[in-house]
C-alpha cells in the first residue's frame, strides 16, 4: 500500500513537471532577455516610421527579433519589399537547424501539432526546450505550449511597450538592458553543456563555432556566420567523437 502511494506520488510529480504551467514557469528566466530585446525592437520600429499598429502586427506575425530589426532598418532605408523579405528569409534560416534538432523529441505528435509548436520556435525557447529535454526521450506537448505562449505574450507586450515608450528612453544601455540577451545566451550555453556528460567535445565544438562565426561574419554576413558555424562545428564534434 505504501509503495502504491509512492508510485502515485511519483507519477503526479512527473506529470506536474510536464504541465502547461510548468512550461510557463520555465520560461520566466528568459523573460528579461525577451523584454529588453522586444522593447528595443519596438523602439527601432517606431524610429523607422512604423505605426504602433504595424509594430504590433509585425511582432504578432513575424515574431523574430533579428527579422524585426532588419525590417525596420530596411524600411527606413527605403528598400524594396522583395529585398526585405529575402533578407529576412536568409537571416532566419538558422531556425531550420533548431527545428531539426528538436524534431526527435516530438515524434509522438501529429503533423498539425508539430506545426503549432514549430511556428513559435525561437532561439530562446529552443535553448530552454533542449535543456529540458536532456536525459529525456520526448518533450510534453503541453509543457512546450506553456513555454511558447509565455514567450510569445511577453514578446508582443515588450514590442508594444517599446513602440509607446521609445521616445522617452534615450539610453537603455545605462541599465545594462542590452547585455540581457548575450547573458541569456551564455546561461543557455552553460546549462546545456553541464547537463550532458561530454564536456571535452562540447568545448571543442563551442570554440570552433566561435572561430567560424567570427571568420564567416567578417567575409559574409552575420546570419551566414551562424549557419556556417552550426553546420561545420557540429560536424567537427561528430568527427572528434568518432576519432577519440
Amino acid at each position, binding site marked *: 500500500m505504501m509503495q502504491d502511494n509512492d508510485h502515485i506520488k511519483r507519477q503526479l510529480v512527473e506529470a506536474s513537471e510536464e504541465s502547461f504551467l510548468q512550461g510557463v514557469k520555465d520560461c520566466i*528566466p*528568459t523573460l*528579461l*532577455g525577451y523584454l529588453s530585446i522586444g522593447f528595443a525592437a519596438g523602439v527601432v520600429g517606431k524610429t523607422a516610421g512604423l505605426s*504602433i499598429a504595424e509594430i504590433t*502586427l509585425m511582432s504578432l*506575425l513575424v*515574431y523574430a527579433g533579428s527579422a524585426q530589426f532588419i*525590417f525596420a532598418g530596411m524600411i527606413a532605408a527605403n528598400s524594396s519589399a522583395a529585398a526585405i523579405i529575402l533578407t529576412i*528569409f536568409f537571416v*532566419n534560416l538558422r531556425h*531550420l537547424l*533548431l*527545428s*531539426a*534538432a528538436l*524534431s*526527435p523529441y516530438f*515524434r509522438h*505528435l501529429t*503533423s498539425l501539432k*508539430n506545426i503549432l*509548436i*514549430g*511556428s*513559435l520556435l525561437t*532561439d530562446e525557447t529552443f*535553448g*530552454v526546450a*533542449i535543456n529540458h529535454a536532456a536525459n529525456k526521450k520526448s518533450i510534453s506537448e503541453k509543457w512546450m505550449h506553456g513555454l511558447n505562449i509565455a514567450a510569445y505574450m511577453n514578446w508582443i507586450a515588450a514590442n508594444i511597450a517599446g513602440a509607446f515608450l521609445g521616445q522617452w528612453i534615450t539610453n537603455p*544601455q545605462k*541599465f*545594462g538592458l542590452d*547585455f*540581457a540577451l*548575450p*547573458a*541569456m545566451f551564455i*546561461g543557455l550555453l*552553460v*546549462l546545456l553543456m*553541464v547537463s550532458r556528460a561530454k564536456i571535452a567535445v562540447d568545448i571543442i*565544438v*563551442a570554440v570552433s*563555432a*566561435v572561430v567560424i*562565426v*567570427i571568420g564567416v*561574419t*567578417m567575409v559574409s*554576413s*552575420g546570419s551566414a*556566420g551562424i549557419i556556417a*558555424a*552550426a553546420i561545420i*562545428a*557540429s560536424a*567537427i*564534434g*561528430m568527427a572528434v567523437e568518432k576519432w577519440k
Partner: protein
Amino acid sequence: MEIRWSILFIIIGASIVTVIPRVLPLVILSRLQIPDWGLRWLNYVPIAVMAALVGQELFMQDGELSPLHNNIELLAALPTFLVAILTRSLLGTVVAGMITIMVLRFIF
C-alpha cells in the same frame, strides 16, 4: 493607428519566410527515421548555435571584429559565465550579467 497596405504586404511575406524554416524540419524529420550519424550531428547543433550566438554578441560589432582592448561586453562575460557555472540558474545569470555591465560602465 493605421496599417499601410505596402507594410502589411511585407509583414505577411516576412511571416511566411520565417515560419517555414521553423516548421518544416519538425514536421518532416519527426516522421522520418533519421540515420545514426544524422542524430549524432544534430546532437551538437544546439551547442554550436548557442556558442555562435554568444561569439557574435561578444566579439562582433556591425560585421567587424570589435577591438579586444576595452571590450566591456567581453569583460562582463567572465563573471556571467562564472555565475552560470556555479549557480546553474538562467535568471541568476541574466541578472548577474546586467549588474556586471552596469558596474563596468560606471567605472570605465
